[in-house]
C-alpha cells in the first residue's frame, strides 16, 4: 500500500517537473523570440537562453528516449499492456507530428520568403543608386572644392621679403573652415581658421603627406565627431612653387544631412542584407527549437497519456493472468476518473469477487467430496468384505483393500480392467469370474451366490452379493459386488454341527452303555453256572462280545467327548524344534520309530503344549498306522514366509498308500477315514487344534508315494512376552509329568 502511494507521489512529481520544464522552455523560447526581434533589453540573454533551451530540450529528449526504451523493453518481454501502449504512443506521436511538421515546413518557407522579401532587387538597386548619387554629389562637391583650392593657391601671392602669409581673406572668401599653406618640407607659411583660438593647422595624416610628396592632390571626405562632414584637401601649387595648401571645407548642411541619412540607411540595409542568412538561421533555429519542444513535449505527453489510459487495461490484463492461474482474490485499483475504464475495472472486480466466491464454494464442495470419498475409502478399507464397483461395461472402477486379501489380487491390478481379465491374472478365479458374469448378465437387480474356489493349498468359499446401481431415471450405473471369504465360517459351522452331534452322541449313547455292560455281566454271572457247557459257552461268548462292543462304544464316545469338549487353551511360547524333539523322544526304540529333521532352530510359537502334543501324537500314530510299521515316519520343520508373516511349517510324511483321492479334500472332517479301525476323528481333532492356534493344515500325497500332512503355525514376534527358553523347559517338565 505504502509502495503504491510512494509510486503515485513519484509519478505526480515527475508530471509536475516535466510540465514545469516545458513551461520554462516555452518561456525561454518566447524571450528568445523577442530577442531575435531585436529587443535590446533581451539581446544579452539570447545565448544563455539558447543554451538553456537546448539543455532543456536535451533533458526532454532524454525523458522521451527513456520512456521509449522502457516501452520497447516491455514490448520485447511482452509485458501486459505494452503493445497497446506502443500503439497509442505511435498514434499520438504521428497525430502530433503531422500537423507540427506541416506548420514547421510552411513556417520555414514563409519565414525565408518573408526575409528574402526585405531584400528585393529593386530595393538593392535603389539603395546602390542612392549611395552612388550621394557619392556623385559629394564627388562633385569635392571636385569643386579642389578646383577652388587650386585657384586659391594659384592666385596666392607670396611676399618676396618673406614673412607669414595672410590667408584669412582667402579663407573667408572661400568659406572654408581652415586654410593653411606649407612648403613641401612642411614649414607652415600661413594659417587661417574660423576659430581664432586655433593657432596650429590640423596635422595632415601620413597618407596625405605621402600623396602630396608624390606630386598629387589629396581630397577626402572626413566625418567629424558630431557627425558633420567636411572636405579635406591638400593640393600642390600647379605653377611649380614650393607651396602646398591644406583646406577644410564644410559640406553644405543639406547635402551633409542627406548624405548622412543615405549612408545610415545604406549601412543598415547592407548590414541587414549581409545578415540575411544569419537572420534566417536564427529564426529557423528558434522555430526549430519551438517545433522540437512541441514535438517532444507531445511525445512525452503521448507516453504519459497512453500510460494513464493503458494502466487500468494493463492492470486488468495482469489480473486476468493471475485469475487464469487460480488467484481469484486479485483486485484492480479503480481509476480516479469515473469513465468507461473505471466501469470496466469495477465490473472486472465484481467478476473476480464472484469468481472467488464461486471458487470458494466449489473448493468447499470439493473438500467435502474429498472428505466423503476419504471417509468412504476408510470405511471400505476397514470392512473385511471385498467390495468392487463395476461400470455398465463390466470394468472395475474401484476395489477396496479387502479385495486383495480375499482374491489375492491387488486392487491396482484390478481397477480399470474388465472383470473378465481377473481370470487371466489368476486362473483360480475363473469360477468367480464366470459365476459373477453369469449373475450380472441375468438382469436381476440383486442377488446372492456362493462360489467355491480351489486354491493351490485349500478350498475357498466366497459368499457374493451383487446389486445393480441405479442412477438418474433408470440409467444403468453398473454393479456393486460385495463378497466375503466364508471358508472359515462354513468350516466353523460344520465343526460346530459335528461338535453338537458328538456331544449328543456322547450323552445319548454313553449313559445306557454302563447298564448294558453291567446287565451283560450279571447275565453271565447268574446264568453261566446254571447252563450246560454248550449253552454256557454261547453265553460266555455273547456276554463277552457285548462287553467288548460296549467298551468299544465307550472308547468311541470318549473320543466324541474329546472332539466336542469346549476349547480351553493355555498358550505359551515354545521353542518349536525343541518341543517337537521332546515329544518325539517317546517314539525312540518303537519299531522303525520316527525320524525328525529340525529346520527352524529359532522359531518360537505361541501354543498350548498339551494340545500340540496331542496333534503330534495323532499325526505320528496315523503315519505309523499308514506305514504299517514298515518304514520310519519322516518329520521335519522349517521357517517360511507367507502373506508377509513368518510361519513355522511342520511336515509329517509316511511311505504308506497315501490318501484316497476321493476323500482327500475331506480328510479333516469327522468320520472321514480310510482305515478299518478308528472313529475318523483324529485328523478332525488335529485340524481343530491347529485352527485354534491360528494355523492351517493341508493333506496331500507325496509324488514318490505316501501321505504328507503339512501344518503351518504362526511364529511369535521377536522380543514379545516371556523368554521362550524358560517356558520350553517348563513345558518339558510338564510333558514329562504327563
Amino acid at each position, binding site marked *: 500500500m505504502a509502495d503504491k502511494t510512494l509510486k503515485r507521489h513519484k509519478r505526480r512529481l515527475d508530471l509536475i517537473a516535466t510540465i514545469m520544464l516545458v513551461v520554462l522552455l516555452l518561456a525561454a523560447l518566447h524571450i528568445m523570440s523577442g*530577442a*531575435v526581434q*531585436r529587443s535590446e533589453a533581451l*539581446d*544579452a540573454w*539570447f*545565448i544563455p537562453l*539558447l*543554451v538553456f533551451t*537546448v*539543455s532543456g530540450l*536535451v533533458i526532454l529528449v532524454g525523458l522521451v528516449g527513456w520512456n521509449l526504451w522502457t516501452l520497447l523493453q516491455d514490448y520485447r518481454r511482452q509485458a501486459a499492456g505494452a503493445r497497446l501502449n506502443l500503439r497509442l504512443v505511435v498514434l499520438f506521436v504521428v497525430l502530433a507530428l503531422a500537423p507540427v511538421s506541416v506548420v514547421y515546413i510552411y513556417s520555414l518557407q514563409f519565414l525565408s520568403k518573408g526575409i528574402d522579401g526585405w531584400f528585393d532587387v529593386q530595393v538593392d538597386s535603389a539603395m546602390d543608386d542612392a*549611395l552612388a548619387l*550621394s*557619392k556623385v554629389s*559629394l564627388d562633385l562637391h569635392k571636385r569643386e572644392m579642389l578646383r577652388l583650392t587650386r585657384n586659391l593657391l594659384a592666385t596666392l601671392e607670396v611676399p618676396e621679403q618673406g614673412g607669414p602669409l595672410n590667408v584669412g581673406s582667402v579663407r573667408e572668401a572661400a568659406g572654408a573652415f581652415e586654410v593653411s599653406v606649407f612648403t613641401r618640407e612642411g614649414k607652415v607659411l600661413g594659417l587661417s581658421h574660423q576659430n581664432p583660438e586655433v593657432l596650429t593647422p590640423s596635422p595632415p595624416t601620413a*597618407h596625405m603627406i605621402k600623396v602630396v610628396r608624390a606630386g598629387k592632390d589629396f581630397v*577626402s*571626405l*572626413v*566625418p567629424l*565627431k558630431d557627425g558633420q*562632414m567636411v572636405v579635406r584637401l591638400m593640393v600642390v601649387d600647379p605653377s611649380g612653387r614650393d607651396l602646398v595648401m591644406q583646406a577644410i571645407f564644410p559640406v553644405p548642411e543639406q547635402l551633409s544631412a542627406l*548624405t548622412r541619412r*543615405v*549612408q545610415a540607411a*545604406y*549601412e*543598415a540595409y*547592407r*548590414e541587414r*542584407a*549581409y*545578415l540575411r542568412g*544569419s*537572420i534566417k*538561421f*536564427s529564426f529557423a*533555429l528558434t522555430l526549430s527549437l519551438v517545433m522540437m519542444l512541441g514535438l517532444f513535449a507531445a511525445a512525452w505527453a503521448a507516453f504519459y497519456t497512453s500510460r494513464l489510459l493503458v494502466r487500468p487495461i494493463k492492470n486488468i490484463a495482469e489480473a486476468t493472468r493471475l485469475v487464469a492461474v487460480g488467484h481469484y482474490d486479485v483486485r484492480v485499483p479503480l481509476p480516479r476518473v469515473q469513465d468507461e475504464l473505471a466501469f470496466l475495472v469495477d465490473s472486472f472486480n465484481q467478476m473476480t469477487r464472484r469468481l472467488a466466491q464461486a471458487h470458494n464454494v466449489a473448493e468447499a464442495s470439493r473438500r467435502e467430496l474429498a472428505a466423503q470419498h476419504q471417509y468412504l475409502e476408510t470405511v471400505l478399507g476397514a470392512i473385511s468384505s471385498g467390495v468392487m464397483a463395476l461400470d455398465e461395461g463390466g470394468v472395475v472402477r474401484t476395489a477396496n483393500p479387502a479385495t486383495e486379501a480375499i482374491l489375492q489380487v491387488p486392487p491396482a491390478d484390478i481397477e480399470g480392467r474388465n472383470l473378465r481379465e481377473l481370470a487371466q491374472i489368476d486362473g483360480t478365479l475363473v469360477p468367480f469370474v464366470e459365476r459373477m458374469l453369469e449373475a450380472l448378465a441375468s438382469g436381476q437387480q440383486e442377488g446372492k451366490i456362493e462360489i467355491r474356489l480351489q486354491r493351490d493349498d485349500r478350498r475357498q468359499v466366497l459368499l457374493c452379493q451383487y446389486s445393480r446401481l441405479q442412477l438418474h431415471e433408470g440409467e444403468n450405473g453398473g454393479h456393486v459386488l460385495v463378497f466375503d471369504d466364508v471358508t472359515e465360517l462354513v468350516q466353523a459351522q460344520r465343526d460346530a454341527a459335528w461338535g453338537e452331534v458328538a456331544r449328543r452322541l456322547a450323552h445319548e449313547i454313553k449313559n445306557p452303555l454302563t447298564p448294558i455292560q453291567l446287565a451283560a455281566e450279571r447275565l453271565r454271572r447268574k446264568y453261566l453256572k446254571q447252563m450246560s457247557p454248550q449253552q454256557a459257552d454261547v453265553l460266555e461268548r455273547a456276554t463277552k462280545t457285548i462287553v467288548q462292543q460296549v467298551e468299544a462304544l465307550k472308547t468311541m464316545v470318549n473320543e466324541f467327548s474329546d472332539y466336542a469338549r469346549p476349547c480351553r487353551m493355555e498358550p505359551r511360547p515354545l521353542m518349536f524344534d525343541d518341543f517337537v524333539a521332546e515329544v518325539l523322544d517317546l517314539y525312540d526304540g518303537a519299531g522303525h520309530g520316527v525320524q525328525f529333521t529340525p529346520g527352524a532352530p529359532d522359531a518360537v510359537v505361541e501354543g498350548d503344549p498339551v494340545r500340540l502334543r496331542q496333534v503330534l501324537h495323532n499325526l505320528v500314530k496315523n503315519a505309523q498306522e499308514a506305514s504299517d510299521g514298515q518304514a520310519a515316519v519322516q518329520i521335519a520343520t522349517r521357517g517360511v514366509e507367507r502373506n508377509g508373516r513368518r510361519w513355522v511349517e511342520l511336515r509329517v510324511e509316511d511311505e504308506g498308500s497315501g490318501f484316497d483321492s476321493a476323500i482327500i479334500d475331506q480328510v479333516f472332517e469327522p468320520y472321514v477315514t480310510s482305515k478299518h479301525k478308528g472313529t475318523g476323528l483324529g485328523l478332525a481333532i488335529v485340524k481343530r487344534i491347529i485352527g485354534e492356534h491360528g494355523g492351517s493344515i493341508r493333506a496331500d500325497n507325496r509324488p514318490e508315494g505316501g501321505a504328507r500332512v503339512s501344518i503351518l503355525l504362526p511364529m511369535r514376534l521377536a522380543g514379545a512376552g516371556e523368554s521362550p527358553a524358560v517356558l520350553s523347559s517348563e513345558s518339558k517338565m510338564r510333558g514329562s509329568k504327563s
Partner: protein
Amino acid sequence: MALLLLCGPSLPAALEFSQVTITLGEDDRIYLDAQIRYELTPAVSEALENGVPLTFVTRVQMRDTEAWIWQPDAAEHRLHSVLRYRPLSGVYEVRNLESRDKQVFATREAALRYMGRIRDFAIIERSQLDLDREYLVRLETFLDIEALPLPLRPRAYLSAEWHLAAEAWEWRIRP
C-alpha cells in the same frame, strides 16, 4: 552544446601580442605599452566590409600570484575598440569606447595598426600593491562575439572563423 558554444576553437595566430612593455613611471604608476597584431579571417573581413561593427576587447589583469581564487584582482581593465567600415566615405573608423575617441583611416591595415597600439596605459599605482609579493600580469585580447548583431551570434559561436583571440600573454613582476 553549451560547452561548444562557449569554448569554440580559434584559428591560431589570428591575433597576437607582438610587443609588450611594462614600466614603472616617474609618477609611481605601472604603465603598459603593447602592440597587438590583428589579422582578420575571411568571414570577419566580409562582415566588416558589409558594415558589421567589430568589437575587440583587450583585458589587462594584474593578480597576486598567491591569491585565492575568490580574492579580487589587484587590477583589471577592459579596453573596448570598435572597428567599422563606412562604405559611403570608404574609410575605416576606430572608436575607443572608454575614451570616446574616434579615428578614421583610409585603409584597413592603418585602422588595425592604430587599434592594436596601446601607449602609456596606467595599470595601477605602485602604492596599491604589496611590495613583498609577486604579481602576475596577464593580457588577453579577443573579438567580442556578444557585441555582434544578434542574428550573427549563433553562427559565430559555432564557427571557428569567428573565434579570434590572442594567446594570453603573462609576466610575473615583483613591484
